[in-house]
């Protein structure tokens, strides 16, 4: 039996004894988590420590595993969005839109340009909300609470926009097959405009607070670095990969939802350390703002959903007054929608990287198999290697800059 299959505490007990006999050093085992405020989620790291320095570690994950893939195999297609909300709950609309786009690819539905632009706006707002959390919390973990409290107001403003669009705030369950459940109200557009007007000043103030802050730089530069080759082998994507200098972004590589219509840059870092990850996310917020502005300026007129009566619920007055409306309503609610037998993989650029949906349909009312490619789950396995030889406080900063979301990690 391989040594690694043993529980870490048994494995480490041998190492501790061995090292004590060799040079008299006293290693110790430390449980970081599962419910430690600094881990920002429920996952445990069992660390072998030499004083304050980490010798080795093992991550124990799965504390909030909710069997989403199994549940998805037993739910009609339109009931799967609430599951995607609860993966990366910091940027739920990206997950929602990714799921609808996967389904539309499987069903061969073309959505109107206006819907695509609306989706781009909401996904970029979600990305900003995601990066606000990650970067400001990195500040908190290195001892700067002010920035966090300051920018969190603007996360609240983004949530108010969600609320105006779909009625929910955190777990949004936004959108339908082929578009949105209702058109955006003038108030929603006004809230977006207000956000675009106020937020840049706040964000640049936040950047000023930390980017050239001596303490912050000392705490983050050369902390938890990873090389580009290692990162690619570990399956890193998103801001964490771009911090190592690789400009891989699905919005550019494989544009979905009309991303090809917008001008934006991909910020990249160089050394793949905590500071670079922070800077890449900062840069991405500015690019997201640019994309939202362009999308608003170019927003075409038109319907807010595709004309697909087989899949899109008819308005209530039609359901009550017309025969067709009632039939379609009944069929959709009962899950009797025509679904071709096919396999699709659709990736979107989530807040943390490539969020992929691998859907296999067999023509029935539920997916035959739905697999989520969860970026957090894939890159978190590199964490142990990234923190070996570092101080415990560096591990906290690394963990927070990787933006590991427990909901996405455990599905």
């Amino acid at each position, binding site marked *: 039996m391989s040594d690694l299959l043993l529980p870490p505490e048994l494995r480490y007990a041998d190492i501790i004894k061995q090292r004590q006999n060799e040079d008299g050093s006293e290693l110790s085992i430390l449980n970081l988590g599962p419910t430690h405020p600094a881990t920002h989620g429920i996952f445990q790291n069992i660390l072998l420590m030499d004083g304050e320095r980490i010798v080795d570690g093992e991550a124990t994950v799965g504390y909030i595993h909710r069997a989403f893939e199994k549940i998805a195999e037993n739910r009609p297609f339109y009931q799967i969005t609430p599951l995607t909300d609860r993966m990366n709950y910091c940027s739920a609309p990206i997950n929602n839109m990714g799921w609808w786009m996967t389904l539309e690819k499987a069903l061969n539905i073309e959505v109107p340009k206006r819907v695509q632009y609306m989706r781009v706006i909401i996904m970029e707002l979600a990305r900003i909300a995601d990066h606000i959390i990650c970067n400001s919390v990195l500040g908190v973990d290195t001892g700067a609470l002010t920035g966090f409290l300051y920018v969190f107001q603007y996360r609240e403003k983004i949530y108010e926009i969600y609320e105006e669009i779909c009625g929910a705030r955190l777990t949004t369950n936004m959108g339908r097959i082929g578009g949105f459940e209702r058109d955006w109200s003038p108030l929603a557009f006004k809230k977006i405009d207000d956000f675009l007007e106020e937020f840049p000043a706040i964000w640049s103030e936040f950047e000023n607070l930390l980017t050239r802050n001596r303490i912050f730089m000392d705490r983050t530069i050369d902390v938890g670095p990873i090389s580009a080759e*290692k990162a*690619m082998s570990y*399956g890193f994507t998103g801001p964490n990969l771009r911090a190592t200098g690789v400009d*891989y972004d699905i919005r550019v*590589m494989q544009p979905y939802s009309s991303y090809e219509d917008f001008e934006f840059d991909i910020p990249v870092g160089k050394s793949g350390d905590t500071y670079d990850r922070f800077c890449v996310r900062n840069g991405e917020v500015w690019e997201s703002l640019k994309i939202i502005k362009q999308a608003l300026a170019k927003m075409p007129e038109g319907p807010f959903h595709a004309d697909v009566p087989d899949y899109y619920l008819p308005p209530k007055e039609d359901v009550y007054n017309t025969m067709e409306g009632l039939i379609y309503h009944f069929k959709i609610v009962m899950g009797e929608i025509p679904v071709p037998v096919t396999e699709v993989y659709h990736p979107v650029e989530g807040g943390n990287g490539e969020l992929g949906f691998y859907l296999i349909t067999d023509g029935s009312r539920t997916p035959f*198999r739905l697999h989520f490619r969860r970026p957090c*789950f894939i890159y978190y396995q*590199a964490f142990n290697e990234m923190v070996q030889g570092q101080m415990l406080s560096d591990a906290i900063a690394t963990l927070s800059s990787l933006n590991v979301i427990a909901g996405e990690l455990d599905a």
Partner: protein
Amino acid sequence: MALETSVIQTKLVDKFDTIVTDFVQQHDIFAFEVDATSIIEVMQFLRDDATLRFNFLTDLCGIHYPDATPDKQFAVVYHMHNWRDNVRIRIKCFLNAENPEIDTVTSLFLGANWQERETYDFYGITFKGHPQLKRILNMDEMTSFPMRKEFPLEDGGRTDKDDRFFGRTTDNC
């Protein structure tokens, strides 16, 4: 697209002959089946060949086909991505029901480690040569493999959903 799917197919068939079969274009992804015993050689060739250059293992997951023949009950699916030419492929390896096992690809891609553990955890597919093949999301004490189709979504022993509590019995419902 610089790299045509026909080139991928020709190169693979030239090198591996009948090990690689059933080439099909599914939406935007070129898919094919690989004999499970040769997965390492095929993936290494796909990664290291100068024209193919599939440098990134995007995704790895298992599938259970309960209605298929016993030698094709399980499948492991790999999604690979060539970042230079921006081409994606999907590789499927079918495994038998009694002893579903396949070689690990952790030697080629470090990121396969946890994804293979997840597949083992949920489907009971054994990855030969894996450094740490133990459960990852479920608890260690678990004995079943919950993503297999025969595993019920809800616990059959639940009493809170008993029909009797709703004034029904199995006879009069």
